[in-house]
């Protein structure tokens, strides 16, 4: 394991006080905080190496290009992709889904085809597919989930063209058995798109062993800057995909009546990319590797065990998600009878505890659970039992103030 106090001291923002109280940051599923090394990496890029990439022959441009491509290699190794060119930098998970729905989808989805999503998806893994289906007169099939969030809907006989599923849920924490889904999907002749926004920050992810065709995640949820994200696509598929956005940086030759496109991955990165973001992501990955993804998972399981035991003792409090903590990531959505999640979050804020309240961009899931909103505490490597205790204290305070 690792020294949590030491880790905590690597994150300057965690020593802030909020409303006169020590900050307990439990909103990591929305975005994580950044360690000094990531802040320094961005700073160093702009201070010492800033230049546009790919197009220059001067020293700075070559340095910036090398740093950008080094980040791509780090990402590829981190998720065990075979080739760095299978890694496309996007601005986040949302853009990655849109890229695939637009570029792969418009070419490969035809009238009457089926696109499968699941009930647990984040809006960003629903809407691009919904629009694609409408545009192409295709069917959007919604696979059902059980109480704990595991996909139960079968793909057999459905013959979908693509299955879009999240690796880990941002509300229930449920970790899907992607390997099984990939096997089933491939038997049906479908490709698999995995939304890994909530998985990559918290566990070891290996795209080869998952055998998915597309995998997307966001840098900002894994200690890295906002505005940088990743789309992994198997090389054979990527090579046959059309560009998403077009313009500079993604072409080979341009004439007024035609253009030829750059090879992968450049073909999918039109315009000046977010180089400092990629460099920051590289530094974030280095930091995570130093701690070890297995250790981070184990740390979160410890916090889950501790907090679930305590939360489930609070009268009127209901927690959601798998009972087996090994099959969920470190977050807990819950409701408290008679107290609206927004009120709870406001009272917790007075105690320096940051949680999220609402539907967390999963309205269909909340409709299924028949609740308009939940409160969500989400952990990361720098959280401690003291943060959980502050949460519990804040819940008691909210009950004192708000119970009718």
């Amino acid at each position: 394991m690792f020294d949590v106090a030491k880790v905590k001291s690597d994150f300057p923002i965690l020593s802030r006080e909020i409303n006169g109280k020590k900050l307990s940051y439990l909103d990591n599923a929305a975005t994580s905080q950044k360690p000094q090394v990531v802040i320094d990496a961005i700073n160093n890029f702009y201070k010492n190496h800033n230049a546009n990439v790919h197009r220059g022959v001067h020293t700075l441009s070559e340095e910036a290009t090398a740093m950008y491509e080094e980040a791509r290699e780090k990402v590829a190794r981190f998720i065990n992709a075979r080739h760095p060119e299978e890694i496309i930098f996007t601005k986040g998970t949302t853009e990655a889904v849109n890229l695939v729905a637009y570029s792969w989808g418009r070419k490969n989805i035809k009238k009457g085809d089926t696109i499968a999503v699941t009930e647990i998806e984040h809006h960003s893994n629903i809407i691009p597919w919904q629009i694609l289906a409408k545009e192409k007169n295709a069917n959007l099939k919604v696979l059902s989930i059980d109480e704990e969030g595991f996909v139960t809907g079968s793909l057999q006989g459905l013959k979908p063209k693509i299955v879009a599923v999240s690796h880990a849920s941002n509300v229930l924490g449920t970790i899907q058995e992607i390997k099984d889904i990939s096997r089933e999907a491939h038997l049906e002749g479908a490709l698999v798109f995995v939304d890994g926004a909530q998985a990559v920050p918290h566990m070891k992810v290996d795209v080869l062993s998952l055998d998915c065709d597309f995998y997307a995640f966001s840098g900002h949820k894994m200690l890295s800057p906002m505005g940088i994200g990743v789309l992994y696509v198997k090389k054979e598929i990527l090579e046959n995909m059309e560009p998403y956005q077009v313009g500079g940086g993604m072409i080979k030759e341009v004439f007024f009546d035609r253009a030829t496109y750059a090879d992968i991955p450049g073909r999918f990165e039109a315009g000046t990319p977010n180089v400092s973001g990629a460099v920051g992501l590289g530094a974030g990955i280095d930091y995570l590797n130093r701690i070890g993804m297995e250790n981070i998972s184990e740390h979160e399981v410890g916090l889950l065990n501790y907090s679930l035991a305590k939360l489930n003792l609070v009268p009127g409090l209901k927690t959601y998600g798998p009972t087996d903590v090994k099959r969920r990531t470190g977050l807990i959505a819950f409701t408290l009878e008679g107290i609206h999640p927004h009120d709870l979050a406001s009272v917790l804020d007075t105690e320096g505890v940051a949680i999220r309240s609402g539907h967390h961009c999963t309205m269909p899931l909340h409709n299924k659970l028949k609740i308009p909103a939940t409160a969500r505490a989400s952990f990361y490597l720098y959280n401690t039992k003291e943060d959980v205790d502050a949460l519990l204290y804040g819940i008691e305070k909210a009950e004192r103030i708000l119970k009718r």
Partner: protein
Amino acid sequence: MDIYREELMDHFKNPRNYKKLPTPTKSVHESNPLCGDMIDLEVLVENGVIKDIGFSGAGCAISIASASILTEKVKGMRVKDAKKITKMEVAQSVNPDLTISRVKCATLSLSALHKALV
């Protein structure tokens, strides 16, 4: 920062005008899909004056308390004047310390009232 002052909590726990009207001249439903708050508001307007007003609904403490405060304020008011009430005023009267994200909760009842008075 203490947005849940005692006076406000009294409006939440014992909301005024939390009722259905027997003969409303207008009923409206307003909701904030982002947090699931919803309010049903009824008014009885006679000769350009709000003779009676009632609300019901489910929501956070801020939205319930603000509906209670607002309905108390506008009962007996001329429609013309009630229409002029701004979001700012309502937020101020509920609690000047409301953070931006909670102002939306505090002004749900005002949106309903404005709809009812068109």
